[in-house]
């Protein structure tokens, strides 16, 4: 009896210690992931002088966030507002379009048996792992030749092709679209396109939203392609513009005041994406399991 009563006690203690150590571990990393963002937010409330003279993890005497916002949109003939607009147009069209195109293609791969199906899908799969770099130089030259460079179309068009989206939508369509339902609709005489538009697309909607979400964030945060294809400063997207201002700010004696604008601009650039993720948690958390099913 003595052994039996003592054993659970030490076990309980051990379990509690384990749990405390695990919590500590997880909290340390929560701090690691959030503290830099906290610093960015706090810094955006300071004046440029306050940035240099006050402690990074606390507010300086004057709260200057709204003045910084005003300065941000006024600086450089109000280019920042243009960058936001360009980024929004690019991210919205690229993500809406590429997810729709991926959904159509993924549905075709899942629903039909046709000559060339496996070969085509194999090529699509392989191209997921072709480094995007390979497309950089030819896209730049193609866009220059066709007169599309320095238009938003130059970055939108290549972004409409999303092989990983096709792959995800095929897997999703195989699980979500019930074959019986489609066959029943066929027997009732519905055409293939009507079946897709009225039945299948509704079943595919959660997958569509997930692919849309990641395509949106991918486009909003993209830097390499816009950097190559857009060279006029009024056509920049946020990432290219902020990196440009940062390079100006770092030049000795040129525009030191830009640091606070880059920091405030960074906060403004992050906020929309964070809201999207916060409000659509159900989608991205559930949707990510798509990729793991048959990977």
């Amino acid at each position, binding site marked *: 009896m003595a052994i039996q009563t003592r054993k659970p006690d030490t076990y309980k203690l051990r379990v509690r210690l384990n749990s405390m150590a695990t919590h500590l571990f997880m909290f340390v990393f929560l701090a690691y992931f959030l503290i830099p963002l906290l610093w960015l937010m706090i810094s955006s409330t300071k004046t440029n002088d306050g940035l240099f003279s006050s402690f990074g993890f606390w507010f300086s005497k004057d709260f200057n966030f709204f003045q910084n916002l005003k300065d941000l949109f006024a600086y450089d003939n109000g280019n920042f507002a243009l960058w936001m607009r360009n980024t929004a147009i690019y991210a919205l069209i690229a993500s809406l379009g590429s997810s729709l195109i991926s959904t159509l293609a993924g549905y075709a791969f899942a629903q039909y048996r046709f000559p060339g199906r496996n070969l085509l899908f194999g090529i699509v799969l392989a191209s997921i792992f072709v480094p995007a770099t390979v497309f950089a130089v030819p896209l730049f030259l193609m866009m220059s030749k066709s007169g599309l460079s320095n238009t938003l179309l130059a970055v939108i068009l290549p972004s409409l092709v999303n092989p990983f989206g096709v792959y995800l939508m095929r897997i999703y369509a195989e699980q979500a679209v019930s074959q019986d339902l489609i066959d029943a609709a066929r027997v009732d005489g519905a055409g293939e396109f009507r079946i897709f538009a009225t039945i299948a697309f509704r079943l595919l909607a959660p997958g569509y939203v997930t692919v849309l979400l990641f395509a949106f964030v991918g486009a909003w945060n993209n830097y390499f392609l816009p950097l190559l294809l857009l060279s006029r400063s009024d056509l920049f997207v946020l990432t290219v513009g902020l990196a440009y201002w940062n390079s100006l700010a770092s030049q000795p004696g040129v525009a030191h005041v830009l640091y606070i604008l880059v920091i405030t601009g960074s906060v403004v*650039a992050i906020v929309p994406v964070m809201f999207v993720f916060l409000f659509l948690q159900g989608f991205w958390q559930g949707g990510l399991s798509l990729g793991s099913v048959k990977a």
Partner: protein
Amino acid sequence: MSVANDPGKILPTQPPWQRTLYKATPYFFLLPFLIGYIAFSIYPLLYSFNLSLYRKQIIGGITFIGLENYGKVFQDANFWEGIRNVLIFGAVQIPVMLGLALIFALVLDSEIIRRPSIFRLGYFLPFAVPSVVAALMWGYFYGQSFGPIAQVAVALKLKPPVFLTANGIIPAMANISTWQYAGYNMLIIYAALKSIPAELYDAARVDGANDLQIAWYVRIPLVWPAIALTILFSINGTLQLFNEPNVLTVVAPSVVNLHFTPNIYLYNLAFRNGEFNYSAAVAFTLALVSGIIASLVLYATNRRER
């Protein structure tokens, strides 16, 4: 009724034009993707490969030189220095990041932690930050003028650490990438863990396995496909490292040189020097190296798994 039992077949009573139309349906669905794919993937690839076979000189114009550019890439010290840099970066950063991601996913899935959704969201949040902004932010963070790390060091009467040096730059960038993508990889693995039926754990527990053994022998092997996917994506991303060094070169131009990573090198070749032909060959060689490394790593890790 035969339709329901034989999905995808058409009724024999349908007229022939309808059959032809039916057979063409999948291609209609694929059409938008295929047009885009040919225009913006296949065509650029062919175009670029063709470019890589020529040399353009101010005197002498454009000459066909076959695979000579590729021979030049193989002997190009700048290219291989960049490859060496990203390999050193990846050899440390990928195992650390994916190891952390796996531990986070296992902990969050095991219900040891109260309120796991806070951690899930908090860890994932840096993924929403554009990598340019992440690099800018960490660049300031590391900095001497208003960086908080230097401020803390000064307050403690210590010498402020200098991060962006020849030896420090790779760990400094590895930290940025880990900060940004650990949570994303955690989610991929976590989603796979969620799909394992709980009965499997119960069975292992009845057999006397403890939590660590269950993690090692049951959970990790079952989510291996998801882990392999994160490995592939990480290798691909590492070999193409561009945004972080391109932003940090502003604050540390002497450390991040014009060929610091293969992608930086390629960018400077094409857009600083206008050497489009040679940079196309560099791009294809990079893709080849990337493919070889990814296959080797997958082969090695898969064998260990079995």
